[in-house]
């Protein structure tokens, strides 16, 4: 520790007096001044969980679906697609910079709907990306380079923890609009409209298409309509993050309703999609980034610039996951099977929500836990405060993020009672 501190001191001096800095680094390390980065708030939870030896431990951190035995779930449609692919003996040649064409097409179709006017006029550009993160980052980099409006991106408060550093690293600045109402554990509609009405024109506003992360609180259709009108009035550039299409209601089209509505209303949106959750392809890194443009000519220009951005990051995307996703979406019986399996996953989560609330009632909790059932998607914003979260982790080995978010996917019929017990213990 002392060595680290002294390196820091010398490093600071080194900035004033270069020769001193050089002396220290030559004898020690180039990296003497590199600070230890804190563990990732979300992914760090899993790492802490792994180190825990308590047999009753629960990982409710990262949003990865688990079956009712708490095991990772490989979808049957994925296994079937993999068999089909293996039998084809394809080569491993580089994909184009924008990825697998078959994939980009069906990725856009899934989000926008097969009968979308945008697709018919070919006025979108959709590229394959490194899952949702990669998609957001490409979008952020594109905005930083080409958006003529303010540098500010408005996130809902709260938002996925990684949104902020992604946009910041790309060179954008972050602001927020009210979203979650802690007093109701629901949507602060008035607050959102009020804040949005004050956003400077041409700023970028980020909207979660469905199954808001981390709160699970989504606007109702009538509320979306008002948001769309207001955003149009303010002339804001809309960036949708859709990481859970299918996971919110169990219905693909229902979950994409807001995205499609906004497009119909004339917003030329940016859209990030992830197939990590709805196809269980987490580690294969499958995603898409779409820009809805005025016309094909503009789409071509935007596409050319996206390629210029992508090439110096990773050249071209990985094949495996995109090939699986495209095979599923383009093979009728695999696609039907997939829709069933997504529905099944979403339903299991809904059941767990109901069982958790029932469990809390049984424990004798006097709090109102209705929001656990009202919230939608993989996550539940319990309303637990940081101190309560800490207790839940330390005393019960229940791992979650500090903001009180739990991944319902990590709850099973076997452990939901234990979870209810723990939550009650720290909140009574």
């Amino acid at each position, binding site marked *: 520790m002392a060595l680290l501190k002294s390196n820091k001191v010398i490093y600071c001096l080194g900035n004033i007096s270069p020769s001193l800095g050089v002396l220290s680094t030559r004898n020690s390390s180039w990296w003497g001044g590199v600070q*230890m980065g804190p563990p990732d708030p979300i992914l760090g939870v899993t790492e802490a969980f792994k180190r825990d030896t308590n047999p009753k431990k629960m990982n409710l951190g990262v949003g990865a679906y688990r079956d009712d035995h708490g095991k990772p779930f490989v979808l049957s449609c994925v296994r079937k697609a993999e068999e089909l692919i293996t039998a084809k003996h394809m080569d491993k040649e580089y994909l184009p910079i924008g990825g697998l064409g078959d994939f980009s097409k069906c990725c856009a179709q899934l989000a926008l709907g097969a009968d979308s006017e945008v697709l018919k006029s070919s006025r979108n550009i959709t590229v394959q990306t490194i899952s949702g993160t990669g998609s957001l980052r490409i979008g952020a980099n594109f905005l930083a380079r080409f958006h003529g409006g303010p540098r500010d991106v408005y996130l809902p408060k709260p938002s996925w923890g990684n949104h902020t550093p992604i946009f910041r690293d790309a060179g954008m600045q972050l602001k927020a609009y009210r979203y979650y109402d802690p007093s109701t554990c629901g949507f602060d509609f008035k607050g959102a409209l009020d804040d949005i009405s004050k956003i400077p024109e041409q700023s970028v506003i980020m909207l979660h298409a469905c199954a808001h992360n981390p709160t699970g609180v989504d606007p109702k259709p009538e509320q979306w309509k008002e948001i769309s009108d207001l955003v149009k009035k303010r002339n804001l550039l809309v960036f949708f993050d859709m990481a859970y299409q299918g996971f919110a209601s169990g219905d693909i089209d229902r979950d994409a309703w807001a995205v499609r509505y906004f497009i119909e209303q004339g917003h030329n949106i940016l859209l990030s999609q992830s197939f990590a959750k709805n196809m269980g392809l987490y580690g294969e890194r499958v995603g898409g980034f779409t820009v809805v443009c005025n016309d094909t000519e503009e789409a071509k220009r935007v596409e050319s610039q996206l390629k210029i951005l992508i090439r110096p990051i990773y050249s071209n995307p990985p094949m495996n996951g995109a090939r699986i996703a495209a095979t599923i979406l383009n093979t009728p019986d695999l696609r039907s099977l997939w829709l069933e399996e997504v529905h099944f996953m979403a339903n299991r989560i809904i059941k767990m929500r109901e069982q958790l609330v029932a469990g809390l009632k049984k424990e004798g909790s006097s709090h109102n836990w209705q929001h656990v059932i009202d919230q939608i998607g993989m996550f539940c914003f319990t309303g637990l405060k940081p101190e309560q979260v800490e207790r839940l982790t330390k005393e019960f080995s229940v791992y979650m993020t500090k903001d009180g978010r739990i991944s319902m996917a990590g709850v099973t019929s076997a452990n939901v009672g234990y979870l209810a017990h723990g939550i009650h213990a720290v909140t009574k």
Partner: protein
Amino acid sequence: MSVFGDVPLAPPVAVFKLSADFREDGHPQKVNLGVGAYRTDDCQPWVLPVVKKVERLIVEDAGLNHEYLPILGLPEFRSASSKVALGDGSAAIKDGRVGGVQALGGTGALRIGAEFLRRWYNGVNNTATPVYVSAPTWENHNSVFADAGFKDIRPYHYWDAAKRGLDLAGLLDDLEKAPEHSVFVLHACAHNPTGTDPTREEWKQISEIMKRRSLFVFFDSAYQGFASGDLDKDAWAIRYFVSEGFELFIAQSFSKNFGLYNERVGYLTVVARDSENLSRTLSQMEKIVRTTWSNPPSQGARIVSKTLNCPELFAEWKSNVKTMADRVLLMRDQLKAKLQALGTPGTWDHITQQIGMFSFTGLNPKQVEYMIAEKHVYLMASGRINMCGLTTSNIDYIAQSIHDAVTKVPQCRS
């Protein structure tokens, strides 16, 4: 009115445009000597037999799933990658001061390394640190470092067009004159695009200056195994620098030597002074990865890891790599022999002296244009050809085309 009304149409990336043009060409004798991917003697892509074997094992393994990898990548892949680069007996690995980041291809490894250096090297966020890349170099090097935020990217002398070899004096002079702490991107072997590597003596001279002047060593190693057919021989320069005590980065690609181009398998090896500096460095690289792609793709890393960590599969892989390297060496020999037999003006020794996938033919842009337009032989404007595009069926046509280009299209005035 559109927010993107002013977005200009960007020029296509040259090497991919070349392939696109090739695809559209209907000429029966067309040849693509552009993009750097291996081809068999039937001019087909080659999925390595060991890769096919391992992929089947993976698909049939019901115990495997598609869960997220850790941010820094698959652990077994990471350790195996460092070992491949630094050698089984590496003292640095034993000392616990070697680590790294699984990345999306060699490109991804370069980018993570570049992002880290911009943030943490030579001060904090010092975008003015000069980054030197060889003249010429892989064209994406410039963009990687520029997009990572470096403002001062400079060439160092490398290719001597007159003598068709390494401009050692120019290189060493640039090393002596570079500001201290400058970053130098060195090609570990099979220099792209020239195929010209320093000899071991020349590497020693480079190393001596870099150490004395505190220059940062950033190796790009995209062709280990491909250059000579021998993994250890191709890693000599890297291992020499490590043994000389440098803290350095190595961007490794498994695209070529595993033929896993589209699975994006790469690794950034980090050699630090000690494990403590290493762990702080890796923790910051994690943050960079998290906002770029969160965690890397699993398929390719699994294939490489299974292969490298199993002795029989590792042996089979080495033999597959030798197959590829040997075919390239054969084509080099034959091309040179044919050009000499045709009496094509100039000396063609560089064809067999150069090493790896590429050859810098020495053809000038006008001659290249002629090759493409008249002969339907596609190569980069720099005169770079991918030796893998040569086959026993097309080599006569290619040799004749080069002969015609050289004799019919004048040399540029230098």
